[in-house]
Every structure is written in structure tokens, then in C-alpha cells.
């Protein structure tokens, strides 16, 4: 470092400096959704993640202002996968400050956008579509039995997954930089997402069959016998009514009916059908 370090760009070459940078990006990534707004979503949070890097690389006020503005554009991804994006972006800013002129505002932003959408797809299907529902189903069952271990396991397992994703993601993004794109090809991203989707779909099917307790108390008389409709249904397909209810909700959501309305509608339908003894 030279005498006029305060005004010169500091580029990180030593491994220990880089490790510290990776740690800082990882910890700062926790605040990604700070100041979340409908105009540009996580833009304020992403700026906050990048700020120390930008301050270090751009001591000149004009350059720094440009860098700040560069990272206040629209940003939105799954919060658990911000690590690789922050890592790649910091590494690109590093190259740019070193003199890589081809990394203009547009180039940096297009890499960010190119990463945030596919990674959000992975994060959403893997975390919210697969891991959390499986965990929730098991732990909710324990909680309903009055077992305090349910919520504790839920919290600890998700925490462990998150910590691993964040630490591993930032480090691999920062160290591989722009090549991260090649390392994670669209075909691979698709594969990970498909894998998560397969498990998620099968598990959702199992959830419907095991945890949705909707039956009908209806019965009819045939000659001398009284036959319960539910018994007949069970002969055809066990858990038929839960399946119909779930597919009904699914069709409405696919037709872009707001989940809030579907929830209210289901509440009302349940009350009405229950009141008249059609469902129980």
C-alpha cells in the first residue's frame, strides 16, 4: 500500500484479504431485503452489500457516485442465493477498478440480471418448493402432538441450509468471478431446478394424501342397507376429496386468482359445506 492509499484504488491480491472480503459480503448479504420497495425491490439492500467494496475501489467521488448509482438499479432474487451474485459482482468491480474497461455499467448489470433470475428459480423451487414443505410437514406433525422439538428442528435445519448456501455461494462467486457463468450453465441450472421440482411435486402429492383430512358424512340407503358414501369413495381412490380440493385451488391459482381470495373463498366454502353436513 502506498502513502496516498486514501485516494488510490485498493485492489485485493492477498488470499487473506480476499477471504475477509468474502466474509464481509456474506454477512452483509443478510440485509439484502432491507428497505424492500415495490419500485426496485432489493436494490437498496444490494447497494448496502456492495458498499464497502465500492468505497474501497472508488475513492474518487465521481467514480464512487457512478458506482453507487450502478448498484441502485432494480434487483430481485431469492435472498438465500445472493451470495454468488454479490461475489461475482464484487469480483467484476475489482477487475473494472484494475482497468478492465469492457466492464461498463451495462456489462456489470447484465451479469447481475443474468444471475439473479435463474438463481432465484433454483432458490425458490429448492427452498420454498421442496426443503421447507418437507421439513414443515414433519415438524408440524410433531408440534401438533405437543412436541417442542418440532419448531426447534424446523428452525435449526433451515438455518444450517441457509448458512451453507450463503457461505459456499459467496466464496464460489467471488473466486470464479465472471467464469461463474460457465461453471453454472443454463443446462445445469435447469437440472438442479428439475431435481427440486421432482421431489417437490412427489412430496406435495404425499402431503395431500396424508395431511388433508376432508371426508363426507353423507350416506344413502340401498334396500335394507345404509351405505356411507365415504366408504364407496375410499374403494375408488383413497383421499379422493383432498385431491379434488387441492386441484381446485391449484386451477384457481394458475388462472391468476389472488391467493388471498382463494384462501377466503376456501374458508367460506368450508363453512357452508360443513354447516349443511356435506363435508366433515
Amino acid at each position, binding site marked *: 500500500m502506498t502513502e496516498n492509499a486514501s485516494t488510490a484504488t485498493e485492489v485485493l491480491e492477498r488470499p487473506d484479504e480476499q477471504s475477509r472480503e468474502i466474509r464481509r459480503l456474506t454477512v452483509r448479504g443478510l440485509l439484502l431485503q432491507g428497505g424492500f420497495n415495490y419500485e426496485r425491490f432489493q436494490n437498496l439492500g444490494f447497494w448496502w452489500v456492495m458498499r464497502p467494496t465500492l468505497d474501497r475501489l472508488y475513492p474518487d467521488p465521481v467514480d464512487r457516485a457512478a458506482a453507487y448509482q450502478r448498484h441502485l438499479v432494480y434487483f430481485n432474487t431469492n*435472498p438465500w442465493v445472493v451470495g454468488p451474485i454479490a461475489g461475482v459482482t464484487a469480483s467484476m468491480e475489482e477487475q473494472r477498478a484494475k482497468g478492465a474497461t469492457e466492464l461498463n455499467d451495462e456489462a456489470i448489470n447484465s451479469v447481475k440480471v443474468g444471475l439473479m433470475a435463474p438463481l432465484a428459480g433454483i432458490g425458490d423451487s429448492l427452498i420454498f418448493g421442496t426443503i421447507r414443505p418437507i421439513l414443515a410437514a414433519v415438524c408440524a406433525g410433531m408440534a401438533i402432538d405437543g412436541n417442542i422439538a418440532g419448531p426447534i428442528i424446523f428452525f435449526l435445519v433451515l438455518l444450517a441450509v441457509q448458512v451453507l448456501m450463503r457461505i459456499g455461494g459467496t466464496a464460489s462467486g467471488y473466486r470464479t468471478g465472471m467464469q461463474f457463468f460457465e461453471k453454472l450453465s443454463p443446462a445445469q441450472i435447469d437440472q438442479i431446478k428439475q431435481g427440486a421440482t421432482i421431489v417437490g411435486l412427489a412430496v406435495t402429492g404425499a402431503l395431500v394424501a396424508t395431511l388433508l383430512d376432508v371426508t363426507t358424512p353423507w350416506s344413502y340407503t340401498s334396500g335394507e342397507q345404509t351405505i356411507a358414501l365415504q366408504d364407496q369413495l375410499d374403494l375408488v381412490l383413497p383421499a379422493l376429496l383432498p385431491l379434488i380440493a387441492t386441484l381446485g385451488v391449484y386451477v384457481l391459482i394458475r388462472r391468476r386468482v389472488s391467493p388471498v381470495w382463494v384462501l377466503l373463498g376456501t374458508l367460506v366454502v368450508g363453512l357452508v359445506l360443513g354447516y349443511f353436513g356435506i363435508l366433515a
Partner: protein
Amino acid sequence: MTLWQAFLIALVVALAYLARRILGDPQIERPIILGPVVGLIMGDLETGLIVGGSLELIFIGAATFGGTAPPNVAIGAAVGTALSISAGQGVETALVAAVPAAVLGTFCELFAKTVCSFLVHRADAAAAQARGRTITGIIWIGNAIHFLAYFVPTFLVLQFGANALEGVLSALSDDVQNALNTSAALLPAVGFGILLSVLYNKALFPLFFAGFALAAFTDFTVIGVAVIATAIVIVIMRNRTPQAPSTPQSSALL
């Protein structure tokens, strides 16, 4: 419910939500976590656990995808748990109280995110002058808005909603009680339906029925189905070269 209990519960809800903003989204605003915590504050951990677990199933698929506004599970869970314990009522009542609270709570998040949109322009102006401190300050003003958008309505509903709900519940007949139970049993279909639409993939959709059939016709648990599905995924992945042409994917998740 005492003033302090209402205050503490509102504080817990708002802090759990704030963790989504500034502590990496650790999912502590899920009903399975908030239920027992609210139960502790209300002096009935057991009911809190049961209500929290039941609400978790209802809202199992509810999550914020791409900035959409799902039902507010945090406020729903806290209000449902607290009001059912204070009214000395069962789980079904809690579930049915939680749904309207979750629906109304949707506006809390909408409100905060909309108000924060105005802050972005302040941040732009500060960025043009490289005033990092000002932008940081703006972010924290935004976080405070998010916090208050949860704290104030939750506190008000708990403080003034308990008496009203008790009045309604004491007037209910057995028929209505049955209707409540049915509704509570049906509600998890909403969570599962949302989950399905999140996972939507035309080519893979039959696997939903495979998982369903496996659990419906046999004694397979959710974990058992998950293990089998994971094993199949691993086999498929190994037999596929990474350069394999990608199949078209739904963009619903992006």
C-alpha cells in the same frame, strides 16, 4: 389478554418479520415458530404448539415469490393463536380467526413496500453525490416503516379484537362449530394448491400423482416419498451429461 401481552406479541411478530429484511430471511415468522412463542407469552405453550403446527400446514405453500403478496402468515398465526388462547377456545377457532387476520395482514406488507418506493428517489439523489451515509440512513428508515407496518396493526387487533371474538364465539351453535371444524380441515388444500402452482412444470406434473398414490394407497409417509423421489432424481442426474439440451422451463418462479 393484558396490554403487555398484546404489546409483546406485536413486538415478536414485527421483529420476526424484520428478520426477513435484515437477518437473511430465517423463516422465523412461520406459524410453527410464532405459534409456540405466542403460546409462551399467553401462558399456554401446548396450545401454541398445536395451533402453530396446524397453521403451518395451511400456509405450507405460502411464500413471497418474485415480490408477490401472499396471505400474511405471521400476523395470521400470531392473532389466531393469541385470540384462541385468550378466548379459551380450541384449535379450529384459532385457524378460522387466523385466516381473516392473514388476509387483512396482506395490506401491511403492501403498505410498507409501497411507502418505501418513495424512499428510493431520495437514495438516487444521495447516490449522485456519493453520500453513502445518507443512503444507509434511508435503508433504516425503510426498515423502520416495515417494522411499524407490522407492529401497529397487530397490536391494535390484539388489544381490541379479543373481546369482539369472545362475544362472537360464545354465541355459536353446535352447527356452526361443526362448520368451523370442516373449514379448518379444508384449509390446508390452499397451501398445497399454492405449492403445486409454484412447482408447476408440465413435463413433470404426473409425479404429483405418483407421490399422491404412493401415500394414499400405502403407509408411506411424506419422508418416505421424499426419499424415493430423491433417489430417482440422483439416478436421472447421473445418467445425464451436463451438456444435455435443456428442456423448456416455466418462468413462473423467476
